[in-house]
């Protein structure tokens, strides 16, 4: 079931990615002004945090498969830390924009930037909740070689969030 969700999400975000690229082609000045207000270093830092969480999630699933239940729980906690780190950094970016009087409906850039990064942010929130629930359960040792479908499915969801950012980061933050 998680794979159907993944495909639906990829298609929805794919439309937004292409819309952003086409709108930038059509309105280069508007997008140049909008992207000039973005901090590339913050975007790169968030990429590293997402990758770290993905790596920890893979390690967690591998640990449960080898019956290393305590290690698996610790890896999940590290994945949760990566997700929360992303939310803090991204939340700081959003707060800065709101403080500077950012209006999400000013032009094509602000609408597409808000939709893309806002929806992605919400997916990271969901990912963080999933990691927190999995970690809570893993503390009591419920996941092991015969029972690791839940952490594996949670990891796939997170890798999708990571995969989406691998396109979003260069599209919104790097190419201008």
């Amino acid at each position: 079931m998680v794979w159907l969700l993944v495909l639906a999400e990829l298609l929805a975000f794919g439309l937004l990615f292409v819309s952003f690229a086409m709108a930038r082609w059509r309105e280069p000045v508007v997008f140049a002004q909008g992207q000039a207000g973005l901090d590339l270093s913050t975007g790169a830092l968030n990429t590293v945090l997402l990758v770290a969480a993905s790596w920890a999630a893979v390690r967690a699933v591998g640990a449960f498969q080898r019956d290393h239940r305590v290690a698996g729980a610790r890896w999940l906690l590290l994945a949760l830390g990566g997700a929360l780190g992303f939310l803090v950094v991204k939340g700081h970016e959003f707060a800065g924009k709101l403080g500077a009087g950012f209006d999400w409906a000013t032009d094509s850039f602000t609408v597409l930037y808000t939709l893309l990064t806002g929806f992605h942010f919400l997916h990271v929130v969901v990912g963080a909740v999933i990691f927190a629930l999995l970690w809570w359960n893993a503390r009591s040792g419920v996941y092991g070689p015969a029972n690791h479908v839940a952490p594996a499915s949670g990891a796939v969801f997170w890798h999708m969030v990571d995969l989406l950012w691998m396109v979003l980061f260069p599209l919104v933050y790097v190419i201008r």
Partner: protein
Amino acid sequence: MAAKMKPTRVDFIAIALVLATGLSWWLGEGAALTQGHLGQAATLAVLALAALKGALIALDYMELRHAPALWRRAVLGWLAVVIALVLLASLLPRP
């Protein structure tokens, strides 16, 4: 925890993903900027890095390398189409 284990493919992939991100950051931060715009070669390089990172995540982290071909083709096909369309829209002469 990690110290007890030998580095595996997933560890090296994490390092590769971080290095590729650093390269994209370096290109975008000024190394390849001309009057505030990324050059064509740098745009191609940044999107190639994005495709590489996406493929590594799909094949190795999502474990699609060993999954049914239909799922693997669907995700990699999505990545190829999106990157190609973004590349096209980024390199086309502005109207």
